[in-house]
């Protein structure tokens, strides 16, 4: 432990701590911009400078290590003047359309200016960088607001290893932008939205599709929505409640109040995915198919694989994602069942994910000239609609999801967390293969936030070797091992976002502390559901009986399975 004095107060912290860590212990607020609790130190914004006795110049508290007996002043005249000037320099190079900025409410720069009591007239002429990029269906880039903190670049390159963001030019013209200035849609971006989650200001935001949904609600079309597993975990948080507040019933009520006609549960197609994917896995194992089989639920991961690992497309499960399966069923089976033409149904997905917007635009996910999914809203966008409609979310009563796709199991629900698809698959594959009842449903080896998790699960005569990776940096490590044939797994789950879907780019702004609470909520919801195995979902059995026939059957292949493309040309 190291003892030091900050603003006259003694504090003791662990060796290797930074001054910022120590100030937190004393509850002293220090303005930070480039600092992010989930990222490495950058020390470039200089907002957090403090005066350390014996140091010639001010030091960034986010980076400067504590030493025994150190004396620190966090609001001396020198510090106040430097911070105020640095803020002024940033503001004079920032597009200040705050009143109608999507990040108005939670912009870190605005909050810092407010907390610092900065209300001077700027002494420097305002320069606004040019560059508005709306090419991507998922993410909007507005360079006029970028403050060069580098958090997006860290998220994209260091955590995700996608390399869609790079630093260009020098000095006053420095930009965090796409390689060679290409638009985001033509860049290697895989639409995961982790950059949106990392951005402290409004430079990276989610492509806003709420207006399309309002128009559909106002039209004669039947608006049918599906709600992904993670949404019930994070929507309340997006509306100001504690992270991990589960609001399944209120969510349905709110959507009905908005005017959405039918609200289904994507947990249902998550269960359906397990039936299809589990059957596919057993088929591959028994018939010498390509192994390891890798999950295909995460559209960010799919584009990553198509771009960086096109030699492993055959390893991807041919199953569509739960969203896409749902879309296909809505415009075929369901339309037919309720006697509507597919084009009279407006299909909306509520997702924790920005990449789902890209997935919905894939031409192969549709038929006869219309798309299976008309629009994807992220949690942030749905929260915005609920707020703007004046709905008091906190006090809403519960409503059940609609039939016939309103029933999901705990297995479907845990799709929202890393390791969830794997655990759900293991629960079903075990019972289907052995015919025995699984005593312990909790496969804890595949749970939690460790980057790459491994397990060997005895299923009958076979020891099934599995691995789970979340965050594409971890996926890259795992895939490099697969490519080099250093590992011999049967089944791999990969989720593009750190932590899985609860860490998706469409959720409210996160950090690992909030993520831990979300994760806890996922397994709570699983425990609370009456059914926890996909193959015991009666609605799924009914669908097979009435329409699909059998898993991996002819109808399934037509509607629920897909194919992939080599996109490595993006890198050329």
């Amino acid at each position, binding site marked *: 432990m190291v003892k030091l004095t900050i603003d006259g107060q003694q504090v003791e912290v662990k060796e290797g701590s930074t001054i910022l860590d120590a100030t937190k212990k004393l509850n002293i607020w220090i303005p930070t911009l480039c600092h992010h609790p989930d990222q490495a130190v950058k020390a470039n914004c200089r907002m957090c400078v403090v005066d350390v006795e014996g140091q010639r*110049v001010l030091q960034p508290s986010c980076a400067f290590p504590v030493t025994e007996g150190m004396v620190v002043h966090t609001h001396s005249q020198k510090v106040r003047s430097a911070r105020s000037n640095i803020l002024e320099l940033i503001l004079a190079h920032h597009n200040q359309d705050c009143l109608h900025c999507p990040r108005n409410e939670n912009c870190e720069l605005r909050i810092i200016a407010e907390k610092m009591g900065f209300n001077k007239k700027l002494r420097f*002429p305002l320069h606004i960088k040019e560059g508005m990029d709306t090419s991507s269906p998922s993410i909007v880039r507005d360079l006029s607001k970028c403050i060069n903190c580098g958090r997006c670049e860290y998220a994209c390159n260091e955590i995700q290893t996608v390399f869609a963001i790079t630093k260009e030019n*020098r000095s006053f013209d420095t930009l965090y932008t796409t390689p060679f200035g290409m638009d985001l849609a033509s860049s290697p971006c895989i639409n995961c939205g982790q950059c949106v989650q990392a951005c402290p200001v409004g430079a990276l935001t989610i492509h806003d599709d709420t207006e399309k949904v309002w128009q559909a609600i106002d039209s004669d079309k039947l608006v049918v929505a599906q709600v992904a597993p993670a949404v019930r975990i994070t929507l309340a948080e997006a509306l100001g409640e504690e992270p991990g507040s589960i609001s399944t019933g209120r969510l349905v009520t709110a959507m009905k109040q908005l005017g959405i006609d039918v609200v289904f549960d994507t947990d249902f197609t998550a269960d359906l995915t397990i039936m299809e994917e589990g059957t596919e896995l057993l088929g591959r194992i028994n018939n010498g198919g390509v192994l390891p089989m890798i999950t295909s639920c995460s559209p960010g991961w799919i584009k990553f694989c198509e771009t960086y690992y096109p030699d492993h497309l055959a390893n991807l499960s041919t199953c569509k994602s739960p969203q896409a399966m749902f879309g296909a069923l809505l415009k075929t089976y369901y339309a037919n069942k309720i006697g509507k033409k597919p084009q009279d149904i407006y299909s909306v997905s509520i997702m924790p994910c920005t990449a789902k917007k890209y997935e919905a635009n894939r031409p192969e996910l549709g038929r006869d000239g219309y798309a299976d999914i008309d629009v994807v809203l992220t949690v942030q966008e749905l929260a915005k609609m609920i707020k703007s409609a004046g709905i008091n979310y906190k006090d809403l009563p519960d409503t059940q999801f609609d039939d016939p796709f309103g029933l999901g199991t705990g297995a479907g629900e845990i799709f929202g967390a890393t390791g969830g698809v794997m655990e759900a698959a293991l629960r079903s594959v075990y019972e289907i293969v052995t015919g025995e009842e699984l005593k312990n449903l909790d496969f804890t080896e595949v749970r939690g936030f460790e980057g790459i998790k491994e397990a060997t699960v005895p299923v009958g005569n076979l020891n099934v070797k599995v691995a789970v990776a979340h965050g594409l940096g971890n996926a890259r490590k795992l895939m490099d091992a697969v490519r080099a044939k250093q590992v011999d797994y049967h089944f791999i789950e990969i989720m593009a976002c750190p932590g899985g879907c609860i860490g998706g780019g469409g959720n409210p702004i996160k950090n690992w502390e909030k993520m831990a609470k979300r994760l806890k909520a996922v397994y709570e919801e699983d425990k609370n559901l009456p059914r926890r195995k996909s193959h015991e979902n009666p609605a799924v059995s009914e669908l097979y009986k009435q329409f699909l026939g059998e898993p991996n059957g002819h109808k399934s292949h037509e509607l629920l399975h897909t194919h992939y493309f080599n996109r490595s040309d993006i890198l050329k």
Partner: protein
Amino acid sequence: MEETRLILNNNTNYNPVCAKEYAKNGGYEALKKAVQMTPEDIINTLKESGLRGRGGAGFPMGLKISFVYKTPSDQKYVVCNADEGEPGTNKDRVIFETVPHSVIEGMIISGLACGADKGIIYLRWEYPQVNELLTKALESARKNGYLGKNILGSNHNFDIEIYIGAGAYVCGEETALLESIEGKRGEARFKPPFPGVVGLWGKPTLINNVETLANVPLILTNGPAWFKKFGTEKCPGTKLFTLCGNVNKPGVYEFPMGVNLKDLFAFGGEVKKGKLQAVQLGGVSGSIINAEQLDVKMDPETLASKGLTLGSGAVLFIDDSEDMIDLLENIMEFFVHESCGKCTPCREGNMRLLELIRKFKDHSATLEDIDTMMDLSETMICASLCGLGQASPTAIVTTIRNMKKVFTDRIKEEQNNG
């Protein structure tokens, strides 16, 4: 006044790239001694000599080596900073062109002292002729057993390669230089950790200026006591000064540390025309003084006591035909071009200082603009990440301090009259 040539050999009649001829003239004697010495002995000799870094910061060389020596590692590096980018400075080039082997010898001895077997000379891209010459010198050293495996029959190994920079001024900053060698964007790293602990490729790395390394063989050959006979008590040895600007005899000259600036001015043959108006010490990132401040000893302590800097040893003489505002504009244009863009004060601040200087240029400035420049400069000096942003406002700050009339003469007329 005569030069005191210790580094720059007086004998210019031999081929500088030839290791044999360098040895004939007393070269590689220090290395012969060093291979017999323990690392501690070499470090102590350097500590005793009081040799301080000649790149600008003036850090004690012996202490720096001891940090690298004390950090255990399977690999260590010696990097020679030859990214001589400070405008008005050409001393490293002259050293390489006259006594390249003294730098090579200094690097090998430093390697023996800190436990490194690999040296890299980071050479600025603008010196292709030096690259050619150095390549030949290294080859000659290798051929004669001074470089490579089992140096001079000992069990020591050391080899040197040349890395050519890409033209960025900031890469003269030691951590940006390391980033550049690693193939990354030239941007300074946050310190600590210092390169002596976590340096090139994460390994302990000794980084020294060309001139500092060239001093090392002299000290080992002649001993610390001899070295301390030159220069000042706190900063012994000589210093290479690059006299430039409107001076009659521009060039690189070697004098004892602490030489008086007015003697340098006289040595340089004074200004070509008119009268001396100002002097800038240490390159564009250095201080500007007026003609009345010429009587000053050129050593780190004396200069620091007057709020001035020695920097790289460049001395720019400015006669009274020059417009100081034009000069400051030019300096700020340089920094706006060369800021790496990583930290806010430097990225944003240099452009704002340039804008303010231009207000004086077109007579649209106010008295408040002088305060704004001082206030902004203070933030840049104390809050920038690396030496570039900490030093770039120096010219403006010192001109305001020493030649305020330059600015007050140029403020808006109505304000001047009122």
